[in-house]
């Protein structure tokens, strides 16, 4: 076979591969992507990006089937709801928080990840006022680095549903073709697909071991004990970082957003809001890298929420006080100990909210 034919074959093969990757990455129902990835989290994991020898931790196998619920119109049969991302059922292989909570309170839990939309979007398919007085509780979890989003919550995003009719199919197709998130989806696929994740992991690991280069997601590492911290939390240029000041005006805006949501949930859907901000890993353990001053944002937020009568769970104090690490060393998510501490606090908060 001459050079021309060989290269032409290679070009065609690459084209077909590219089309396949694009199809999987742009799959509107995400099911194909889920089936082919080694992660279920939207970000991919720090751990996945760099698997370092000193950090390698044997993870327990995931327990039980997922409790993910995102079927529209079924909220009426539940009394306990969770929305957020750190509660994801398959999160890092530990006992799913949602299952533990369900077991502790002896009731089913409705979970839907609708962030960064308004938590009231959970009930978008219910008529307001139809479920008053049912003693419902909505636990809203948010990582500390994203809490400021409550200052300006986004409107409800559509829950993915099968298209109906030619027009809807055409609209869906148009949306999928030109949605702005193609690059993010392709990047996620590259980092997390079963085909490429081992290669990416090996590449990034060798980059770090040989040259000390960490990928952009994880630019900071403490040596002893060995911990990785994500750029999201450590880069002073990013609004999500530990270094971003949360002044009183911002705290008030966040509290305003939560107060509005709490009021909507109570009056329209008979539900009590419990807000659970999760302290960032760098907030808790920045001392391993540098002893930089923290602006006490979470305690000030708790105080403001308490003043307005909004239920919240203080995880900052128990996490800070814990002698045992609450995070995986190479991950942005809690470990089993973090889950246990949070579970204890949330169970008590739900029971208290119901008593009132």
């Amino acid at each position, binding site marked *: 076979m001459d050079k021309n034919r060989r290269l032409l074959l290679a070009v065609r093969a690459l084209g077909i*591969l590219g089309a396949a990757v*694009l199809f999987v990455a742009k799959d509107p129902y995400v099911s194909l992507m889920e089936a082919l990835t080694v992660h279920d989290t939207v970000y991919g994991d720090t751990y996945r990006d760099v698997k370092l020898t000193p950090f390698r931790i044997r993870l327990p196998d995931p327990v039980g089937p997922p409790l993910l619920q995102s079927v529209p119109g079924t909220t009426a049969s539940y009394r306990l709801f969770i929305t957020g991302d750190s509660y994801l059922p398959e999160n890092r292989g530990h006992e799913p928080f949602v299952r533990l909570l369900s077991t502790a309170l002896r009731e089913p839990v409705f979970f839907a990840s609708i962030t960064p939309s308004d938590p009231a979007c959970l009930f978008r398919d219910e008529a307001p006022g139809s479920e008053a007085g049912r003693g419902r509780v909505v636990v809203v979890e948010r990582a500390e680095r994203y809490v400021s989003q409550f200052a300006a919550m986004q409107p409800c995003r559509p829950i993915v549903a099968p298209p109906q009719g030619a027009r809807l199919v055409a609209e869906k197709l148009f949306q999928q073709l030109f949605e702005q998130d193609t690059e993010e989806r392709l990047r996620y696929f590259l980092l997390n697909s079963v085909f490429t994740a081992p290669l990416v992991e090996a590449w990034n690991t060798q*980059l770090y071991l040989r040259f000390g280069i960490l990928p952009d997601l994880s630019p900071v590492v403490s040596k002893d004990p060995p911990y990785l911290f994500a750029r999201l939390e450590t880069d002073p240029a990013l609004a999500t970082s530990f270094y971003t000041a949360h002044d009183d005006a911002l705290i008030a805006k966040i509290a305003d957003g939560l107060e509005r949501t709490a009021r909507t949930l109570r009056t329209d859907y008979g539900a009590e809001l419990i807000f659970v901000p999760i302290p960032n890993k760098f907030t808790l353990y920045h001392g391993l890298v540098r002893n930089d001053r923290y602006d006490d944002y979470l305690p000030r937020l708790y105080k403001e929420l308490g003043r307005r009568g909004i239920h919240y769970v203080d995880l900052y104090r128990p996490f800070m006080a814990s002698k045992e690490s609450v995070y995986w060393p190479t991950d942005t998510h809690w470990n089993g100990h973090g889950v246990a501490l949070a579970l204890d606090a949330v169970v008590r908060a739900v029971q208290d909210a119901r008593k009132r």
Partner: protein
Amino acid sequence: MLFNSLHFLVFFSIVLAAYYSVAHRFRWMLLLLASCYFYMVFIPKYILILFALILIDYTAGLLIEGSAGTRRRTMLVVSLVANIGMLAFYKYFNFLNDNLTALLSMLHLANPATDLNILLPIGLSFHTFQSMSYTIEVYRGNQRAERHLGFYAVYVLFFPQLVAGPIERPQNLLHQFRQEAFFDYARVTDGLKLMLWGFFKKVVIADRLTVLVDRVYSAPGAHNGSELALATYFFAFQIYCDFSGYSDIAIGAAQTLGIGLMNNFNRPYFSKNVSEFWKRWHISLSTWFKDYLYIPLGGNRTGRARWCFNLFVTFLVSGLWHGANWTYLLWGAIHGSYLIFAIATRDFRERIARWTRLESHPELRKLFQVFVTFHLVAFAWIAFRARSISDAVLVVRRIFDFAAWRAPADLGLGRGEIVLALASIAFMEAVHLLERRRNIRHMLKDKPAAVRGLVYAGMILSILFFGKFTSHSFIYFQF
């Protein structure tokens, strides 16, 4: 979509494979669909603007060719007004309105018009100029009007050069879509190598330098002269690598599809004077202004005063083309002034060269001229990069306040990164030096396969190792 993105890599691999799999008579449709998709990924509805301009210019071209006298001219004017009008509306309305507001407020009057909340369609400045060159060339009789709407649409929308050039001429580009391009190993691989070089310049050099430049120029008051000088030098290379990198990717991508685009850069920082710089920098734009503005104004075939006026106006307009800000006008004015000064002092400079004996040392003289020209251009880049005239003035004052210079610190780039940036620039300029006599890709063709493999693998690895992949768009996309 950006060239430096996974989306483009996937898109391009699909388009390239499909291009050489469909029959030649369907290729224009494929290119048209691909180009529409490429553009619509930015903001889908803005494709309607291009469709409107395509229809207007296509029709105008046919009517110009089929008419005579006043009607011909009228059709040309319609085309120019449509294109310039679109450009003025989207790009300059708010700038003009803000200046009108400022002027009226000086007279204690209020401006009833408010700023428009619209996004500039990406690449508007480029494809409108390309469209205008078509109707002008048809009017001048240098180009036959295109009868096939599809081919004309591909001429305007051709994705490699749609959003940031090179700004092509119809004589060069239009007929190529009719010629069947057979898959050729040498041509395709050469195109891919050119794209590789473009990616190197963009993600290894330009996107690395942007961290420091953005940090310093976003707050010039917080930096001393040495930091501002360093940022200015880095910006000179950032904008070159960014824009020439884009052009290389565009030209390389087109080449793989069998389409030849014009060269847009020719080692501009090796120019011996500013006039030569403009023959080597953004060649497609400078020749556009030369052919359609400078020469119609009279060019240099007039008296000296008028010649200088023609030059100055051309560069003012060129500055304005780059953006709706007084800083771009200032940048254009600086370059116009350079050229006028060069004209006015030509004899004097020749005398100085004779007196200093530089004339008898041509290599030394050339080195001196390149050094001076680079610094003149770098000085002008201050106005181009600064956010405002006052920022530009501040930067200049601090750079020339040598007494206040301190060692650079806190520039957003660690020492290792700065060393890497300098080494990459040195490597790039070394390649440019080698290319004085012959294109380096052609030089490599004669080398053994092992050497070629090493070079290409090294380039790919350096992009993977040292590339910055945090999605910085190309500077010239904003124009």
